[in-house]
C-alpha cells in the first residue's frame, strides 16, 4: 500500500477500499489543510473542518477521477470546490477585501539584490528566513506558491485548480516572489 501510486489508490477507493483512501488521507492531510487555510484565509480549526469535508467529498466522488490529470490536481480542485460551496458568500466578501490589498493583474518588481539575498546564510538560517517570509505573505499568494513550489503543478494545472486565468496565476506567483524578496531584504538590513 505504501508504494502504491496516488492514482491507483484513488481507483481502489472508488471500489470502496477504505484502506486505500486512508493512505491518501495520510499522504495529503497536511497539504490539503494548509491549502484550505491559505486559499480561503481560514483559521486552523475551521480549515481542519473544511479539509475533512474535502476528503469526504473526494471519497464520495472518487469514481469521477478518470486519470486524465494528476491525482493531486484533482484533489485540490475538489478541496477548492468544497470550500467554495460551504463558504460561497463568506468567501466572496473575503476575496473582495483581499482584492483591495493586492491586484492580481499588477506586477510588483523583484528587488535588484534578490539573487544574492540569501547568500552567506547557513542552510538552516536560509530555511528559517524563507519559511517566516512565506508565512507573512497574503494567503492567496501563499496558496499559489504551495501549488507551484511544493506540489509542483504547472501554471495550467494551478489555473484549473483555482479556476482563474493562467495570467492570474503568473502574476500571483511573480508577486509572491517579489514580496518574499522585499520582506527578506528588509529584515536583513
Amino acid at each position, binding site marked *: 500500500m505504501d508504494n502504491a501510486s496516488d492514482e491507483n489508490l484513488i481507483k481502489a477507493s472508488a471500489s470502496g477500499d477504505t484502506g486505500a483512501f486512508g493512505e491518501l488521507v495520510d499522504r495529503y492531510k497536511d497539504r490539503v489543510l494548509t491549502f484550505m*487555510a491559505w486559499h480561503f484565509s481560514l483559521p486552523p480549526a475551521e480549515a481542519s473542518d473544511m479539509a475533512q469535508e474535502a476528503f469526504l467529498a473526494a471519497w464520495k466522488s472518487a469514481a469521477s477521477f478518470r486519470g486524465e490529470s494528476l491525482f493531486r490536481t484533482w484533489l485540490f480542485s475538489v478541496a477548492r470546490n468544497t470550500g467554495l460551496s460551504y463558504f460561497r458568500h463568506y468567501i466572496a466578501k473575503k476575496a473582495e477585501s483581499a482584492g483591495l490589498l493586492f491586484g492580481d493583474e499588477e506586477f510588483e518588481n523583484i528587488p535588484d539584490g534578490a539573487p544574492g539575498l540569501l547568500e552567506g546564510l547557513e542552510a538552516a538560517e536560509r530555511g528559517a528566513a524563507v519559511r517566516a517570509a512565506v508565512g507573512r505573505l497574503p494567503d492567496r499568494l501563499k496558496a499559489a506558491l504551495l501549488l507551484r513550489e511544493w506540489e509542483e503543478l504547472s501554471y495550467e494545472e494551478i489555473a484549473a485548480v483555482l479556476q482563474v486565468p493562467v495570467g492570474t496565476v503568473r502574476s500571483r506567483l511573480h508577486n509572491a516572489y517579489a514580496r518574499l524578496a522585499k520582506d527578506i531584504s528588509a529584515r536583513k538590513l
Partner: protein
Amino acid sequence: MSEEKDIRGEQALRAALKEAGAPLLSAAPGFAAAVAAGVSARGRALPVAFAAAALAAAAALLVFLPARREPPAGSPGRAALTEKFENPFGASVPGAAAATQLLYRLSARALEGPGTGPAPANLKEGL
C-alpha cells in the same frame, strides 16, 4: 536587463523555497480518524436509505393491494352478500337491475323491450 535580474532573482528564491520546504500546517492527531468515521458513516447511510425505501414500498403494497383469499379446497362456497347481477360487461353491483331499467326508459329510441315507455321528464322520477 531588469527582466533578466527578475528572472535570476526568481530562480534564487525558488531554489531557496525548495530547500526550505513548505511551512505546512499539521493536521490534528484525530484528523484521519474523523475522516475515516465520516467515510464509514456515508458507506452505511446508503444501505440504510435503500432498506428504508424498500420497507416503505412493501408497506404501500400491503395497504393498497386487495387481499385475495381462496377458499380451502373442498370447502363449500359462501353465499354472496349482495345480489349478483349478470351483465355483458361482467360488473356486479347492487341495484344494477333497477338502474338498467331506468337507462332503458331514458332511451327514446327503444320502441319495445324491457323498460319501454315514456321517458321521464324528471330524472329523479325514474329512481
